[in-house]
């Protein structure tokens, strides 16, 4: 019997699931191949990928200033050439020089310090301080290949066995469930309240925490995704205070996924980092452990392919920092270009900089377009029969709730799949639109959702809306009692 076969590999690998690139996407890719090889074989002529928060794959342009700096850092030998000034803005050249001066030998091809280049961490710490009004220590920052590896690292640290529980929001971004499964831990769900705009109640946290303990699980950490994925809510500050108090009281590590911090679309809400909230409550290093995750993949920059991000780890002793450093060092360091980009994201052009105007215009253009698309799609979902959709206050997704008729639920059972997956498959086959079934994120039992990104370019949105509307109408007709 072969050594590496399904029955002999790590069972935790088998248990792990990640729907964002799961079955529905594989089907979509097969359809895409068909469209190429047999044009006209379907009633649609393109696949509309609304499954993944990957803005630039759908035409969102990168931020020019960031790319100028990165290009110069990739090829520093042109910095001293006169022709460079005709191709790059002066402040990009200046910024690239500044960054390269922080890298020994200007060697962007060398492994850096395992936490990331010190000068870049200084910049990021300053950016955090300027955002929050509370100091940040560059030694608390670990630059990683995207936020996801940082999450994996923390799960590695925290999970000893299936008796260790990590509290996660339901619905959640399935990185958390996958990572917990890979490490053999237990996901302890806490339910967000759909009827209250996906609100997070501390009473629900307490209930689930107590329930886990009664089953012999040791809760170790609480994951909060703010702004939420897939749910899009932005937490109110007093809500955040309640969560901080709860973590402090129960000795839970607060894992704050804040990768969508720049994606807030409603004037009545603001992003507040959990560290800021804790500090503003007078809680310091000895009171609460907070790990904040940030990424270059989202916001208005959308640089998913660069794999840049960091975690800021506060409120733990030096022995722990040593362990985290040690784990980071096995991989040597994160990619340098991603590190540079993280520092740019946390310290973009300021008023007065040569590139500020154009930078601002690009940023505002992208964010206002995202806000418009969020509204348009939210409204479109709410016109559909049996569908309610909460507002996307932030992030990049809508998570409508679909009341599927009994007949449809039975049809799904007959083909051995979940009702929401059944709906999404039908949607894909009829329209080329790719949503992710809500079961991929988990949901309150008996409810069905799907996650749709707000990322197709504005000129494609009418097509998404009209095809979806038509499909939904005919689906509900087909499965009407």
């Amino acid at each position, binding site marked *: 019997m*072969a*050594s*590496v076969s*399904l029955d*002999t*590999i*790590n069972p935790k*690998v*088998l248990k792990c*699931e*990640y729907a964002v690139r799961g079955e529905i996407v594989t089907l979509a890719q097969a359809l895409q191949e068909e469209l190429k090889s047999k044009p006209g074989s379907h009633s649609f002529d393109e696949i509309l990928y609304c499954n993944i928060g*990957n803005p*630039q*794959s759908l035409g969102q342009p*990168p931020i020019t200033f960031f*790319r100028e700096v990165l*290009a110069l850092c*990739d*090829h520093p*030998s*042109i910095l001293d050439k006169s*022709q460079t000034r005709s*191709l790059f803005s002066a402040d990009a050249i200046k910024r690239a020089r500044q960054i390269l001066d922080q890298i020994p030998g200007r*060697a*962007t*091809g*060398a*492994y*850096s310090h395992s936490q990331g280049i010190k000068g870049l961490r200084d910049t990021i710490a300053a950016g955090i301080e300027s955002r929050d009004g509370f100091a940040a220590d560059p030694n608390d920052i670990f630059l990683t*290949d995207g936020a*996801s*590896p940082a999450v994996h690292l923390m799960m590695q*640290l*925290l999970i*000893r066995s299936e008796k260790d529980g990590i509290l996660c929001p339901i619905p959640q971004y399935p990185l958390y469930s*996958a990572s917990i499964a*890979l*490490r053999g831990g237990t996901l302890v769900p806490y339910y967000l309240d759909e009827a209250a705009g996906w609100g997070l109640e501390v009473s629900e946290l307490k209930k689930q925490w107590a329930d886990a303990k009664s089953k012999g699980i040791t809760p*170790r950490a609480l994951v909060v995704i703010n702004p939420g994925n897939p749910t899009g809510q932005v937490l109110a500050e007093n809500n955040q205070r309640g969560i901080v108090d709860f973590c402090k009281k129960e*000795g839970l590590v607060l894992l704050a996924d804040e990768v969508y911090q720049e994606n807030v679309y409603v004037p009545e809400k603001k992003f507040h980092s959990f560290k800021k909230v804790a500090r503003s409550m007078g809680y310091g290093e000895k009171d609460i452990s907070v790990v904040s995750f940030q990424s270059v993949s989202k916001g208005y*920059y959308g*640089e*998913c*392919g*660069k*794999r840049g991000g960091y975690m800021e780890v506060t*409120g733990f*002793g030096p022995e*722990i920092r040593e*362990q985290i450093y*040690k*784990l980071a*060092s*096995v*991989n*040597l*360091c994160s*990619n*340098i*270009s991603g590190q540079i980009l993280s520092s740019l994201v946390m310290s973009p052009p300021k008023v007065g900089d040569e590139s500020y105007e154009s930078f601002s215009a690009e940023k505002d253009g992208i964010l206002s377009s995202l806000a418009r698309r969020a509204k348009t799609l939210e409204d479109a979902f709410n016109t559909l029969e049996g569908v309610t959709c909460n507002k996307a206050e932030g992030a990049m997704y809508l998570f409508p709730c679909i009341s599927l008729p009994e007949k449809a639920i039975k049809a799904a059972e007959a083909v051995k799949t979940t009702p929401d997956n059944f709906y999404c498959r039908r949607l894909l086959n009829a329209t080329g639109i790719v949503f992710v079934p809500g079961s991929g994120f988990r949901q309150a039992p008996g409810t069905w959702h799907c996650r749709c990104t707000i990322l197709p370019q504005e000129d494609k949105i009418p097509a998404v809306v009209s095809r979806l509307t038509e499909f939904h109408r005919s689906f509900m007709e087909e499965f009407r009692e």
Partner: protein
Amino acid sequence: MAPRALDYESLNENVKKVQYAVRGELYLRASELQKEGKKIIFTNVGNPHALGQKPLSFPRQVVALCQAPFLLDDPNVGLLFPADAIAKAKHYLALTAGGLGAYSDSRGMPGVRKEVADFIERRDGYPSDPELIFLTDGASKGVMQILNTIIRGESDGVLVPVPQYPLYSAAISLFGGSLVPYYLEETENWGLDVNNLRQSVAQARYKGITVKAMVIINPGNPTGQCLSESNLREILRFCYQENLALLGDEVYQQNIYQDERPFISARKVMMGMGPPISKEVQLVSFHTVSKGYWGECGQRGGYFEMTNIPPKTVDEIYKVASVSLSPNVPAQIFMGLMVNPLKPGDISYEQFIRESKGVLESLRRRARMMTDGFNSCKNVICNFTEGAMYSFPQIQLPPKAIEAAKRAGKVPDVFYCLKLLEATGISTVPGSGFGQKDGVFHLRTTILPAEEEMPEIMDSFKKFNNEFMEQYDDRSGYSRM
């Protein structure tokens, strides 16, 4: 109060067990001394650009253009970038799914994987399937993924050479498996004796361990030996007989400094042996952009190629890769450029060849210089660096030195290396970080310091070593411990 989640006692024990000396005690001490103003020569890690090796020009030009595609529309772009770099940038941009900022396929861009497959076919003479090639953020991540898939628990063993590159021991600890050591023969030029393998496997099985896989590092790290074709055949036969998956770490395949044993890939040998071995041995081969003459460590680019792995297992490996979304796109382009290099007639070809040859020929000279320099010391025996980037001299330590080390609470080679560091600024990694036979001590240094500085570095070492021996040895002869 109950122990909190991030108190040292409540951490995952597997994390605590992880050791990674390459960035461990010596490196940390060296960094401290550097901060205090001492000149440090970092020879602890294979990080060529940190020691002055320049990046190859052409790939940097291409990636810079990919970072800032708006340059391609600028009429002045030809002033700074040659036409073939511009053409290659367009080629790779067309292979992306929306530029450098979009997540690619979780396995890496299909177009680049095809280029890797073509490279493997040209190199070995056997076709390779792009679907079985996964690009990763550095080879290390790939190794971690595969080991995580193989290891179920502590009764799963992985054969690892001693001395080894400590990524393997660290990963096995992290995933809770068992490291099954097989000793390389220093007196046989770090040769691999199949009888040692058999013995190691037998011992492990006697302890109730299921040995599942075998790691070979070819060329070796830290030992530098290049495996002969007959050695590789023996290994493959052994893996077939014992039902072991073979993990071939071939990241140094471009770094060959002698002509008797050119690099030959495990896959080529395997395919050449025909069935049943060619069809049944499960092989995973690893490569990177970090080594060779490229030395682009900071990009974090690598791949693994799977042979004879069942499709369902490949699906599971894909699934776990998808949780981290995708490897970073710039490094994928570096990989494409590395496996699909310039051809005679291309504008930049001459410069590319000159730069590449320059690096390799210099490395060959430095390998010789270092080996000879070490061997000129009475108490040092150093096998020639046939390949890779390291020198791994055996240092014979007199009993007084060993006692002094014990009194200082240090392992003898750590003691020696710390003294070497403090006296000369040369930062090495003690042999205990890689594993060695009991009572035999080594240190690992790289052959990467600039050629002009080599004589001085070797003189500095010799001076220190003489003084050390004078201090701790009161006889003129030495006996091996």
